[in-house]
């Protein structure tokens, strides 16, 4: 005990010494040795009753001995680890003392085996049962200390959870599909904290006495006081620690856990800056463009919203008749039923009923290639009804401005290929009506450089291919 206290006093700032902490951290490693030895010993004690295992009976005390020695080190190192004070106290109490019980029981077993003492009645089986039970129980508590008490049954069926006195699995918040419906804490901040911080700052494992699993606990702060000063991110310890250089001692998350992304850091900084509200719509907080873009990206709203919907499989008869008309239909992803249709390789003429049938894929069709297919202005009326189109290739067809007007309803369109068509001024009317258009191909058309310059001026992000 004296040696121990000397080592303890040697520690910096009242905490345990580095060397003790080093040994303490070996506890999770060493702790598996007694588990293995003792369970094996119990197993052997059970099977030696059978004649064919009789010969090993005289060696079982080695197993109990090895188990006891390793249990001793596990207990000792576990004690060192407990000195760091990062753990839930009542769980720790039981983990510690049941662990000590394992050590004592296994020592008793050792002497029983070695000296071949007899116990009255069922004494020995009961003792062995106690060892096994204690191992499982203290092991379970140890798991709770490391991973949190909800870890084991996080994904268990609700029946099992209820049996263990836990509520049903939390229904995840519905995925945000419109920025307007995003809640600032529940949809933005809380998921970041859950993902990056809560594994060390929870009910059981309160590193630095800080718990980040609810807003109320976050406000309570940790051992060095408040971690967040609403309205002043620079004065907030939480913000300071996630923005330090990664190599800095106080950088969070620590212990090699993945750091927050730059956008996540920016979002937390902004949230503290706007008084860290615990609820309310994100858009009501008057975010500027920059943070809006970051939040959209974080929520996956910068991509085409269409693709986040799940569509029904295409109707078999529609697919069959389109195939007979010469369409090639390609599936575009394995977990959804969006389709690409390609008519450019068809050996058959484009008849009016072809496009009428194509409308049967209205929901699934996002890419359409009608290149070099004798498409005329009249056909565009039908094509313009395919509102889910993201890519449309109409190149090398005799279409003009007259047909273009029909395309204005294609609100999802990102890429429009009009290479080698006869379009010109009509583009100036069409393009402003297509909010998602990103790429426009108009080489070899009637459009001239003034039209292109005008389009480019109005839509600076639009890529226009023209020569």
């Amino acid at each position, binding site marked *: 005990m004296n040696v121990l206290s000397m080592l303890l006093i040697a520690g910096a700032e009242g905490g345990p010494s580095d060397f003790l902490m080093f040994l303490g951290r070996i506890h999770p490693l060493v702790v598996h040795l007694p588990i293995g030895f003792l369970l094996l010993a119990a197993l052997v004690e059970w099977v030696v009753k059978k004649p064919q295992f009789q010969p090993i009976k005289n060696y079982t005390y080695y197993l109990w001995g090895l188990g006891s020695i390793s249990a001793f080190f596990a207990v000792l190192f576990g004690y060192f680890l407990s000195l760091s004070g990062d753990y839930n106290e009542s769980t720790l109490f039981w983990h510690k003392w049941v662990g000590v019980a394992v050590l004592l029981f296994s020592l008793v077993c050792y002497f029983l085996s070695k000296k071949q003492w007899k116990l009255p009645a069922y004494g020995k089986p009961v003792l062995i049962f106690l060892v096994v039970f204690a191992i499982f129980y203290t092991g379970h508590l140890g798991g709770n200390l490391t991973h949190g008490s909800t870890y084991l049954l996080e994904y268990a069926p609700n029946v099992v959870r209820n049996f263990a006195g836990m509520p049903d699995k939390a229904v995840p918040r519905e995925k945000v599909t419109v920025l307007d419906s995003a809640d600032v804490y529940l949809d933005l901040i809380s998921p970041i904290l859950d993902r990056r911080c809560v594994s060390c700052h929870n009910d059981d494992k309160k590193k630095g006495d800080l718990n980040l699993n609810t807003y109320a606990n976050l406000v309570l702060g940790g051992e060095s006081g408040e971690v967040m000063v609403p309205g002043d991110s620079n004065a907030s310890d939480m913000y300071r620690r996630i923005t330090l250089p990664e190599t800095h001692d106080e950088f969070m998350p620590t212990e090699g856990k993945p750091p927050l992304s730059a956008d996540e850091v920016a979002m937390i900084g902004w949230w503290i800056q706007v008084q860290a509200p615990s609820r309310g719509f994100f858009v009501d907080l008057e975010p500027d463009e920059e943070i809006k873009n970051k939040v959209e990206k974080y929520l996956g709203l910068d991509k085409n919203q269409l693709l986040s919907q799940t569509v029904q499989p295409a109707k078999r008869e529609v697919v069959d008749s389109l195939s007979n008309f*010469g369409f090639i239909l390609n599936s575009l*992803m394995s977990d959804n039923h969006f389709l690409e249709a390609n008519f450019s390789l068809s050996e058959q003429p484009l008849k009016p009923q072809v496009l009428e049938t194509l409308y049967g894929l209205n929901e699934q069709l996002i890419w359409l290639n009608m290149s070099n297919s004798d498409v005329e202005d009249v056909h565009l009326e039908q094509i313009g009804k395919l509102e889910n189109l993201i890519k449309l290739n109409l190149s090398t067809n005799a279409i003009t401005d007259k047909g273009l007007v029909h395309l204005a309803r294609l609100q999802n369109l990102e890429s429009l290929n009009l290479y080698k068509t006869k379009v010109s001024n009509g583009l100036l009317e069409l393009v402003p009506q297509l909010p998602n258009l990103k790429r426009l191909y108009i080489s070899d058309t009637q459009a001239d450089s003034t039209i292109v310059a005008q389009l480019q001026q109005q839509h600076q992000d639009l890529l226009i291919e023209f020569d």
Partner: protein
Amino acid sequence: MSKYHNFMRRPLSRREMLTVCKGGFGSLAFMSLFGVSTFSCSRSKGGILAPTSNVQLGPHYLPKAKNVIFLYMDGGVSQVDSFDPKPRLAKENGQDPRKKFKVDATQFDNVGKILKSPWDFKQYGECGMPVSDLFPHIATCVDDIALIRSMTSQFPEHTNANYFLHTGSGLQGRPSMGSWMTYGLGSENKNIPGYVVLDGGLIPPGGLDNFKNGFLPASYQASILRAGPQPVANIIPKEKIPNLQEQKLDFIKQLDEKQLEAVGEADAIESAISNYELAYKMQSSIPELTEFKEETEATKKLYGFDSDDPHTRGYAAQCLLARRLVERGVRFIELTCPKVSADRWDQHGNLKDGHEKNAHAVDQPIAGLLKDLKSRGMLEETLVVWTGEFGRTPFAQGLDGRDHNPSAFSMWMAGAGIKGGTIFGKTDEYGYRVIENEVTVHDLHATIMHLMGIDHERLTFRFGGRDMRLTDVHGHVIKDVLA
């Protein structure tokens, strides 16, 4: 070297090509069982299109690229003379490299002095990417190009390095990446196979095993189209009168069908009927593909059809053919190098002359291809990949050559899903070894597959007791070059 050049004296016969095609169509037909048909089956009655594999075709996630054009720079382009300028080589020109850094054993181990690049580098485009005077035309496209300077290979010798680059394994016999792509995605065209190699004159060392299907079904191996008027044997009808041929074919078909009725379903007969029909169709589809009647003079000029150099003209035709194959829905197209007098890019001696001749043959056609694809809006869906199998040493072999260097080389990609104007990875001050962001051949494969909508870890084929992948147990998608 002659054994490489003469590998493909006999062009692929029409029947061989059909055999290759047949199975592919079968799996396409299988796709229609899943509710998605890849092409019209109206003409093929009677269970001809039987399934050959139980794989559901199609990408895992929304693809960026639909087609790949793989510009293979056979022999290994010197990185320090093309896309990775190293001023230090000029400063230390003529000094002993072994006093400067540790020199690995090379193929010929005839280590000379540090050799500066005979070409100057200039910065091009908005991105300011430096390109040497070897590639004045490609230099005008740098804003569409993502350059990787930190490629490495595992093999310092052509044959193994070629297998590695093409199949993800240095040993002979694994499926080529084009086979994997067509296996995973199928082909859109019923008249042309999904994986085509345009033979520019040089089949790379390792031979046809670079383009084979390995353990994948035979229908996924490459079909090789030769340059010139007869890309596939017997493609010009031998009957003078077209009617006569049709009548002959009809008669054979009648006999076959009679036999079929007698014996019930028989794959061999059914396949024979469809093969004859397809062969007849190919006699029009292949010439239509390889004759450039509807191409304008301006387009041809863009590719370099008017060049004085016959090799430039030849490669220009191959590049234009590649674009036409993409238009026809062919999934994976590889172009091998033209047979210039200097023998590939493998300049163990006479670096300046050899690299100049090779560069002159491919520079303008490649730039023309990129520009043509771009203005047609096809670059959006087509991935163009330019690479050799390894790089070359920054020090001389003998007096004026460069030896093989698998520790660093440069490659680039352009088109679908690629972030143009990017430079990724870094080599040391001599361009000898990668010092930052190494990209392995497995990583390259993973990235190409990613762009095609394929998760390289999920496209597998069970062989030899385990699920095989193009990337084996390796490969990371290089996100930094993606748009």
